[in-house]
């Protein structure tokens, strides 16, 4: 486990956060957090509601001033030179919308102009992005006529028009349809493959699991753990489980009697049994079904998920 001690290669770090703290009146929203994000990583920042994710991302992107601590974006101190640091970033804030009174293309061009992209190049880039995001046919329509998913696609296109070195995304797929979610995840992966470092906050643990090279879990303003998703999943052996479904309903007390079962949950017509030893439990359940005259409809060994780890870390 890496924890907060991240003494990696210095030149490879594009985000360095040290003892970052932010208070709102009596509440410490972010409490002395430290972490680094390496070049080309997709770094997930997970936490329950109110854990401090948005406050952290707002400080990293220069929107909020920390009470104490340091933030370096590609070796630039954001408190000293926020404009220079912002030039390297693309930011999609959680509550950040695009301009509903402008067209899709106008929104992208407006964004590009803030970064000083020449006019002709900007027009071509905007068209290319609109094609990539399957919005070219609607490029001259006002954004207010768009669905939420389409707006978010324009939002992301506007954010990456200057090809940022670091992309900050705060809940980018929240509340979107499946197609838009997939498209946005693919764009994130493509951007990352081209060398963009991605800092992603999300509630969606599965999304973090699919996308992130490393994740940090924050709870009550403190970072609880930082590591690769696969390692976090293996942290809690007791979260391995066996899911089983029988042809008849059974009394769960019969299964609970086994020492192999740590905990049992009913999931619709299935049972989910948490165990330290899935192999023995599967054998036990087979015998149990035979003894009771039950037919096993489905049985599956489930490894601990990142969601299980997340729940454990934020309990």
């Amino acid at each position: 486990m890496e924890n907060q001690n991240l003494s990696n290669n210095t030149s490879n770090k594009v985000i360095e956060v040290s003892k970052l703290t932010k208070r709102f009146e009596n509440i410490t929203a972010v409490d002395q957090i430290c972490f680094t994000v390496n070049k080309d990583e997709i770094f997930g920042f997970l936490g329950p509601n109110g854990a401090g994710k948005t406050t952290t991302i707002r400080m990293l992107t220069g929107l909020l001033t920390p009470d104490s601590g340091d933030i370096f974006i590609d070796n630039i101190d954001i408190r000293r030179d926020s404009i220079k640091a912002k030039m390297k970033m693309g930011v999609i804030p959680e509550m950040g919308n695009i301009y509903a009174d402008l067209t899709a293309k106008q929104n992208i061009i407006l964004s590009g102009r803030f970064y000083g992209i020449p006019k002709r190049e900007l027009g071509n880039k905007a068209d290319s992005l609109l094609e990539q995001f399957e919005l070219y046919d609607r490029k001259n329509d006002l954004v207010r006529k768009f669905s939420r998913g389409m707006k978010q696609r324009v939002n992301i296109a506007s954010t990456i028009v200057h090809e940022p070195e670091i992309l900050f995304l705060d809940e980018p797929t929240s509340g979107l349809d499946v197609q838009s979610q997939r498209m946005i995840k693919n764009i994130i992966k493509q951007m990352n493959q081209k060398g963009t470092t991605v800092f992603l906050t999300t509630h969606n643990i599965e999304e973090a699991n699919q996308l992130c090279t490393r994740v940090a879990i924050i709870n009550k303003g403190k970072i609880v753990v930082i590591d690769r998703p696969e390692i976090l999943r293996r942290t809690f052996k007791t979260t391995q489980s066996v899911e089983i479904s029988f042809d008849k309903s059974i009394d769960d007390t019969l299964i609970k009697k086994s020492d192999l079962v740590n905990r049992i949950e009913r999931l619709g017509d299935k049972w989910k049994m948490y165990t330290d030893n899935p192999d023995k439990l599967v054998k036990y359940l087979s015998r149990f079904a035979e003894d009771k005259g039950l037919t096993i409809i489905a049985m599956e060994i489930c490894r601990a998920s990142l969601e299980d780890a997340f729940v454990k870390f934020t309990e």
Partner: protein
Amino acid sequence: MLIKYPNKQFFRGVMVTTEKNIRIYYTKAPVMIFGLLFPLFMFLSFYLGRGINLHFFFPGFLAMSLFFTASSVGPLITPWEKQAGTYERLLSFPVSINTIILGDIAAGMIFGIIINIIVIIISQVFLNYSIDIFILLTGILLASFCFSSLGVLLASPSVRAPSHIMMFSSLIRFPLIFISGIFIPLENLHGIARILTYLSPITYLVDIFNFSFKGESSISLIIDFAALFAFTVVFMYLSNRFHKRNLMKGL
């Protein structure tokens, strides 16, 4: 992408913010109502049926018009952007709060200048003044900057809806009109009434316009310009402070 010329980046940010404001906010209903219809109705209600000498009162009406138009855009932008969820996105661009404030001021200023140049051209056909064009244009430039700064300052409180700010801004703007010597010439005001007129920046513009159109001045052009400049500096300073303080409120 590195910044080679930080000042260039600052001015580019101001220009892009201004252009964005012009595209989006000039046609919004509150700007039309508070910027165009209000001064027109104020003029009509004062002028119609009262046998007033328009040639005498026109400089005052023009000052009122410039005040309303230039200060109508600023109060709308920040509350509108916060409500629409675009403000946080705007802040994430390579801009500072000063860039945004100057972009908002420039948008109000340009609106005020354009509308009032049109008013001057049309009125000149009927009233045929012998205008001191240099003093007039300098006065318009400085005063529109000053009034637009006031408009941006009025947008700084954190509120849930733009309509709250428009009401609040009316509470500030209307009294400034009434104490500014538009409806009653400065020479006819004495005592506290006269002192109160000095608290309104519009008073100094009325005096500049009186000089430009009629060659008469009740105060002094140097004091007029100095006072407008001082008001502008105060409004900008307060805008910076309050906008910074309320930056993340209401997001």
